[in-house]
Structure formats: C-alpha cells, structure tokens
C-alpha cells in the first residue's frame, strides 16, 4: 500500500511542536533533581528529531548521536580533560566498571556519568517513538496524555509548579492532534490534500486555541473544588494521622516539630560554614511543650531587638581576649540564626537587625525572611565545675517550681511507665547533675539503635516517647533528646528541648585554616537541663554524638564511657566483616569457574526461571505482535511447495482471509465474500481479490473445481498477500 506523503512544511511544524512537548518533560527534571547542563539534553532531543525530519540515514545519524553523547558526557563530568585521549580512556574505564556493577546487581554504585549516558539513550528512544507516533500512527494522543499526567503528578507531589507547563502542553498537544487528524484522514482515504487545505483546516483550530490560551491566562483561576489530594493519599497510605505527618522528610532545619518520627532522607548540601577553633554545638532555639507527638512553643515570648550589638567589622577589631569567635557564613537561607553556646555578640558587615527571644534563644532576622548571611559570633564557652554540679540537689529545685513550671509540664495523658523508668534510673543518683547524667547514659547501654530510616511515627493513641523507649528502640536525635527531656521532667528536673546543628565536619581551607562545614545532615536536637545555682546545661543523649559541655574535673572521676563503648563496638564490627569476607572467599574457592562468573543475585532458581520464562514470554509476545510481518511470507513460501488443487486453494484462500483480517481489513460476520472482495479491491485499486473470490465461490458454492487456472490464481494470491503486508 502506498502511503500518502506528508508535506514537508507540515512535517517541520509537527516536529517543532513535538520538540517543545518533549522539552516539557525535561524541565521538571532540571528543577527537581540536581541535573545540570539541561541544555545539552535539549540539544540532543533537537538533534535526534532533526535527523528524523531530514531523513538522515542511520549510518550517519547513529555515529553522530553517539559522538554527541560521548562529548556531552565528557564535557559535563570531565571538564578539565575535555577532548583528550585521557578523557576517552576514562570514559571507557567508567563504562567497563558500570557494566560490571550492573552485572553484579550493584545498582546504587553506578556512576553519574553512566546514568547520564543511559538517560541520553532513553531520550534517543523517545525521539524514535515520537517519530513513529507522528509519521506512522499519526496520533500523539498517548504521548500527549502521558505528558499531561506526568506534569499533573509532578505538580501535585513535588514543589515543581506546572501551571504554565500544563497550558503550554495543552496548546501544543491539541495543535498536534488537530494537525494530525486531517493527515490520518487523508492517509485512510488515500487522498493527497494540497498544503493550503491543511492550513485552512488547521486555521480555525489555531485561532480557537489562541483564544482559549489568552482567556486561560487572563481569567482569574478558581480555587480547586477538591482539596489537595496529597495529605489524603498519605493518610490513606497510613503515613501520619493528623495530616502533618510526613512520608519521608528531608533532613534539615524545620521550624515545625508538631509531629516527630518517620524516616529521613539524607541531604548533604551545605547549610553554613564556620571558622572556629573548637567544636561547637550550633544552637538555634528551644521548645518547652511536649504534646506526646512532638514539640511546640507555648507561652509568650519575650522579644527584644539586639540593636546595640550590631557593629561594623570594618571599623575596628576590638576583641576581648577570653572570647572565642566563630565566623559563620550561611549558604542555605535559614529563618533563624545558629550560634554557639555562650554567645555574647553578633557582628555583621552591614546593617542588620534581629530579634532575640529570651526564653527560646531564637535570633530572628528583623526582615522576617530566611537569610543568607555572613557574620561573626563572639562567645565565651561555658564551663562547668564538677564540684558545683555534684552539689546540686533536688531540694533547691522545689523553690523554683513556679517559675520553672513550663519546663516541667507533661501531657495530661502521660504513660506511667516512662516515669517509672526515669525514677528507677535516677534513684541512686544523689545530685541533679548525676540524675541527668544517668538518664543521658541510659540509651547507650540499653540496646537502642541510631537510625534515620525505618523510624516509626506514633499512632493517634500512642506517645512518641513511650513508643521509642519501650517498643521501637530505634530512632535519631529527636527520639533520644525528646525522651530525655520527658524523663527529666517526669522526675522533677526542669528541661527543655534544643534544636540546632551538630558541630559539623572539620576541614582545612587553602591556608590550612580550620573550619567546620555544617550540612543539612547535621541538623540536630539535644537537651538542656536546669542545674540549680548554675543554669541551663546542655546534655547529649543521642548515641554516637559527643557532647560539648566543658566539665572541669576538679575532683578525680572516671568519665565518659560513651567513647569507650564506641571503641569497643568498632573492632567487633570489623571482625564480623572480616569473617564474612573469608566465608565468601571459601565459598568462591569451592565453586567451579563457570559458576563464579554468574553474579550472586542470578543464582537462585526462581530468578533463573523467572528470567527464562520472561524471555520466552517476551519472544512469544514479540512474535505474536509482529506476526503481520513474518507470517505472510511464511505462508507464501509454504504455499509454493503445495500441489495445485482445489484443496490447496481453499486452504490458501482461508489463509488469505485471516491475513487480511490481521492487517486490519476485517470482514463482518454477515458480509458475503464477494462484497468483502469488492471492498478490499476498492481499497487497493485492482480486482485481484474479486477474481480470487469468484474462483473460490465457484468451488465452494458451485461445487465445480475443474476449470480454474491454479497457477494464475496462486500468483494473484501471492501478490495479494505480499502487497498487503505492511
């Protein structure tokens, strides 16, 4: 069947529209992932579509595209050695490694470069699909629909705002559909329309779309009739109950702590860098009210402006000797400012006002906006005398009960077993400090596990602390710190919950100067307990973190077994790993060579049978789906060897009917053969089918098979089958 040609200008238009539609897929990728150099992908899509449009033969197109991919990869990932033999070598090595990773099932180890390469190939295939949709199917509804669904999903579930993208896609998609429809029609009826008629057909559509687009932009948008589905979906999936619960939260500073728990995603983007001589906990705020699910700050805040403390660094550098200083540069805007314990002054290079809340310790920029800021804090690290700490007693706390009320409050429905545990832990400790220490150390020695994933969220009737202490025993800083605060309060020691950042990773800059990088992963929470006569003192209950309290050992005591425990743990782990390695080696040694090259995950019979079964099924499906292509040729070939007789002819005619049915010329049950044959011939523009059918009818209904010219009929039959095969 000969195809009706699509005018080249129409094709250009179609490809351009398809290009813009494809681009809409890449835009969210750019915004939501850390994919840079998105222009290279645009370029690639453009290139692939242009090659398709210009009918560039494969032997040119494929190498050019491969070169494009390789060069792009090198440009992005090996910037310095771009276009060198070295770079090429590295690419090849990278490929080898990654194939090895794939082979051994280590999906997570695959390099970014290789992944990017695969993404290019995906785009390549997509361009082929687009070409197929446009030129052969002449219908892009599937692609269009998928794009719309993709954008709406991205818009609903991610921060990406697709409102204009949807509009663009709607216009492009409807335009594409509108242009392709007359093309499909003319292909079906085999009429070649002049290009001017196409544009006449499309013109009203274009006008209407323009009008709709303008209206869509100008008219105010109504509030959605349905509420945002995301909280609903989450609660339906059992994630969180109050709507505040998060699925997988991103780690980092978040002012909202009403619902604690749930797994965390790692995020190692840098929040701030601090030039400081010693490790410091970066405090940001404290919270006073535990709700059995999380923390809120109740009670009025005392706010006052730290106006007088802002000084210009340019003017003079008068540093008071005992003070330490930390030069902090914030890279990721924070709503409140982190500072070390003992901060006395904040200095910035320009006019900058902020509020201090006295009871929470919050330093909020006056602008109210999260800031990126460079500032210096000057602080005197607090020191505590062990002697004084040992001297603290519970009796002196009684007199402060009223003013410390908010730091002693607990939820009304508070599980008694938490209090029981706290009392049991602190029973033998004489001083307030030792009581607090007993609770601080409890976690490290009682089988608690530090983990950021698989952390439970309390159910409606569950207490966050109770769940952690008695059921899951698995969690991160929030679990440990909240539990400690609650336990301290339950035995009458005022305590509050502190949020901020852990000290960070020690690094040295080009001048060998020490500085700490603090990433979102270092977002942390700890405990402050009130020591009568001394004040608020930080505690660190979380396993794996070392506190910073400077306790002066003015009496001899063996201290800090947290470190010791760490030390003990590590060798154990190592030993275990060693053993496992050796076991694996032994196993390998016993296996024949052939088995050894098969990766571990391929070994089980289920996997093998699934793969083999899948392959057979795929081949089967493939053969079935493409039977239009190969079956007719097979039929024709086998037909040649058969004798020339009515029986053969009857079988072959039936095959022909089935074949025509497969290629889309369906015969309704009530249609007679001759009517059908006329229909087929009308579509094809000759009379072969009618001739064959007349012969067949003579044989079938007329019962006379004698004087038919078998050779001629077979020739016709073969022609018909071959010509109707796509």
């Amino acid at each position, binding site marked *: 069947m000969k195809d009706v040609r699509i005018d080249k200008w129409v094709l250009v238009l179609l490809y351009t529209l398809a290009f813009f539609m494809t681009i809409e897929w890449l835009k969210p990728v750019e915004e939501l992932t850390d994919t840079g150099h998105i222009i290279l992908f645009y370029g690639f899509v453009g290139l692939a579509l242009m090659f398709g449009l210009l009918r560039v033969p494969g032997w040119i197109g494929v190498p050019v595209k491969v070169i494009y991919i390789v060069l792009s990869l090198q440009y992005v990932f090996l910037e310095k050695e771009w276009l060198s033999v070295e770079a090429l070598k590295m690419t090849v090595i990278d490929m080898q490694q990654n194939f090895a990773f794939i082979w051994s099932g280590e999906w997570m180890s695959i390099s970014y470069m290789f992944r990017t390469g695969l993404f290019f190939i995906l785009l390549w295939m997509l361009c082929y699909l687009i070409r197929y949709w446009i030129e052969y199917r002449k219908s892009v509804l599937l692609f269009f629909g998928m794009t719309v669904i993709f954008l709406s999903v991205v818009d609903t579930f991610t921060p990406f705002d697709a409102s204009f993208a949807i509009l663009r896609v709607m216009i492009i998609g409807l335009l594409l559909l509108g242009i392709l429809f007359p093309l499909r029609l003319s292909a079906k009826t085999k009429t070649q329309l002049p290009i001017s008629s196409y544009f006449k057909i499309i013109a009203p559509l274009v006008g209407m779309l323009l009008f709709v687009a303008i209206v869509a932009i100008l008219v105010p948008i109504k509030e959605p009739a349905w509420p945002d589905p995301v909280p609903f979906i989450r609660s339906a999936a059992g994630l969180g109950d109050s709507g505040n619960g998060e699925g997988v939260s991103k780690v980092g500073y978040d002012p909202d702590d009403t619902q604690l728990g749930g797994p965390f995603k790692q995020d190692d983007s840098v929040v701030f860098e601090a030039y400081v001589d010693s490790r410091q906990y970066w405090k940001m705020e404290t919270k006073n009210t535990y709700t059995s699910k999380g923390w809120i700050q109740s009670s009025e805040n005392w706010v006052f402006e730290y106006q007088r403390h802002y000084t210009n660094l340019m003017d003079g550098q008068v540093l008071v000797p005992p003070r330490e200083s930390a030069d902090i540069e914030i890279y990721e805007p924070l709503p409140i400012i982190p500072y070390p314990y003992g901060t006395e002054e904040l200095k910035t290079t320009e006019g900058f006002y902020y509020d201090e809340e006295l009871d929470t310790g919050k330093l909020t920029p006056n602008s109210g906006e999260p800031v990126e800021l460079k500032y210096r804090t000057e602080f005197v690290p607090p020191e505590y005398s062990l002697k004084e700490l040992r001297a603290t007693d519970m009796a002196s706390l009684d007199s402060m009960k009223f003013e410390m009320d908010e730091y002693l409050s607990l939820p009304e429905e508070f599980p008694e077993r938490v209090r029981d545990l706290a009392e049991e832990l602190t029973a033998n400790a004489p001083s307030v400090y030792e009581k607090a220490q007993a609770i601080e150390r409890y976690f490290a020695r009682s089988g608690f596990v530090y983990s950021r994933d698989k952390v439970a969220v309390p159910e409606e009737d569950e207490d966050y602390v109770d769940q952690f202490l008695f059921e899951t025993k698995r969690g991160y800083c929030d679990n440990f710190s909240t539990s400690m605060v609650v336990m301290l309060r339950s035995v009458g020691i005022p305590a509050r919950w502190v949020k901020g950042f852990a000290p960070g990773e020690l690094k040295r800059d080009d001048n060998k100067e020490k500085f700490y990088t603090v990433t979102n992963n270092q977002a942390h929470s700890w405990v402050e307990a009130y020591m009568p006569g001394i004040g608020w003192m930080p505690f660190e209950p979380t396993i794996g973190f070392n506190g910073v309290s400077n306790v002066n050992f003015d009496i001899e005591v063996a201290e800090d077994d947290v470190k010791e425990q760490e030390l003990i743990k590590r060798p154990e782990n190592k030993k275990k790993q060693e053993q496992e390695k050796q076991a694996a080696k032994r196993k390998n040694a016993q296996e024949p060579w052939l088995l050894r090259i098969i990766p571990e995950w391929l070994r089980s019979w289920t996997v093998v049978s699934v793969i083999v079964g899948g392959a057979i099924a795929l081949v089967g499906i493939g053969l079935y789906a493409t039977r239009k292509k190969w079956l007719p040729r097979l039929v024709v070939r086998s037909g040649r060897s058969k004798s020339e007789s009515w029986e053969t002819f*009857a079988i072959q005619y*039936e095959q022909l*009917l089935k074949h025509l049915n497969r290629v889309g010329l369906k015969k*309704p*049950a*009530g*249609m*007679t*053969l*001759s*009517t059908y044959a006329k229909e087929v011939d009308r579509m094809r523009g000759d009379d072969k089918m009618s001739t064959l059918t007349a012969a067949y*009818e*003579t044989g*079938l*209904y*007329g*019962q*006379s098979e004698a004087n038919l010219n078998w050779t001629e009929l077979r020739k016709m039959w073969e022609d018909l089958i071959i010509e109707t095969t796509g």
Partner: protein
Amino acid sequence: MLHKEKIDAILANIERTIVGKRVISELSLTALLAGGHVLLEDVPGVGKTVMVKSLAASIGAEFKRIQFTPDLLPSDVLGVSIYNPQQMEFEFRPGPIVGNIILADEINRTSPKTQAALLEGMEESSITIDGRTLQLPQPFFVMATQNPIEYEGTYPLPEAQMDRFLFKLKMGYPTRDEEIEVLSRSESQLPGEFTAPVITLDDLLELQVLATKVIVDVTVKSYIVDCATATRDHPTVYLGVSPRGSLGLMKACQAYALIKGRNYVTPDDVQYLLPHAFSHRIILHPDAAYSGHSIDNVLVDVIAKVRVPIMRTNTL
C-alpha cells in the same frame, strides 16, 4: 439461443415498454421462473399492470386480469358449468384464473371466500369445481396487487394466505428522469401497444426446469436455514419465517442465479432476495412495532448477524 440470452431478451423486452424498474422486472421474472407468485403492494398508477402485461407479452403467454370487488364470487374467478340444452349436458366455462399470467388487482377488496378460491389455484396449480379437478395451464403466474393506503372496506389477507406468495414487492415511484421518459414515450404511443413475444412458452417451461437444476451447496442451504431460524429467534418477532419461506427463498435463489447466468447459488443471492421473500412472512410483537421496530430493520439485522458460510468445513 442460450438460456442466458433468452432471459436477457425478456428483460430487455420489458424494459422497452416500461421505463426503469429493472429490479422489479428481474424479481418478477425470478418468481415466474421459480414457479412462485408475487404480491405487489403499491399505490395505483405506478405501472403494475403495464409491468405484468409486458412480461406476459414477452413470453407469449395468455394474460388475464381479475379486478377484485367485494361482490365478486368464487365462480367469477374459477369459472362456471353452464347447461348446454343442445348437447343436454353441463358445459364448463373456465373463469379468468385459467390462464398463464393473471393480474389479480386489489386482491384485498374481495371476500375471503373468493380470495381462497384464487389462492388454492396458486398453491396447487389446479382448481376444483363441481367436484372436478382441473389442472391449470403451465406456466401459471399470479401477480396480485394490494393498495396499502385504502383499508376501508377491505379484507386483509390472512397470514396463511400471505405465505403463499413468493415475494412481496414494492414498485415505488419512478425517478424524475424516468418519469419524464415515461411521458416522452407515451407522447407518440397509442394505448395498448405491446411488444411481440421474444420466447415461446415452451422456452419458458424449459427455463423453469433449468432453474431447478441450479446447484445449492449445503453451505448455502444451511445459510438459508440459519437466516430463517434467526427470524424466529429474533426478540422483536412474534411469528418468524416458516419452512415454506425457506423453501421459497431457495427456489427464488436458484431462479435468480439462473437469471444472473450462474449455475450455483451464492450467499449474495440469498442476501439479495431475503427481504423480498421474508418480509410478508414475519409478524412483529405488537410492543416492538410500537417502539419503532420494523420488519425491514429486523431483516437487516438478521443479514448482518447471521454468519455467512465461507469455508466448507465449518458448516458440516
């Protein structure tokens, strides 16, 4: 002269007299060759009589016409025995039914008694009068007409009688051009002028025999039966087609295949003739008729649904 040529000659001859109406003349000839009768249902003045007359003239057959009226008696149709005083015996005077081609005009205007007299002759090709059975001349072909508009004072044919007609046909109005042609022809033509016969009655009888020799393959027979069964099983049908209907359809197909110069019947013949042969043999459920179903729809439905046999194996 080959039989195909004879048939073409008859059709051409009819066409010389009547403008258009090729389909009706073909169907009428089909019924004639199949030994069946035709019920023409149409308004007056569309050429029914001319049609029959020219058919009769073309085959050199005796043409008789009976105009049915409410007071017509069976003897007016069949004939009557009259006492001949000279020979001292009753002498049979045959009625108009004794002929080859009879036009029974407005058959529903006469009493059922008289209708029955005609219909017996149609079915048996013989009449019984005064205890004597008289064989009717061959060929014997009745073309009855019925006016569908005027129902006042009529005796509609009972279903059993309808079943005796092979076809029920509708003449229909001529097209504009055809009607102009009708006027042009009549302009210079004297009334009652008919063409000369192109074949003899013997030829026609021979053709009738030939028609019975046309092959009906078992696949086609089963197709006919399937169609008849489908009318009986159709949800909107109260009374379906009788086996006499299937038989008639097959006979008609044979004759039609002969007219088309084939010696075998194809499902196309069946599909073509089925509405003409079946439409007067079906009664719809009253509900179905009220809700807009028509017999024509039912037949279209039957043709579309019944599987056409296209292989030898799947019918045996």
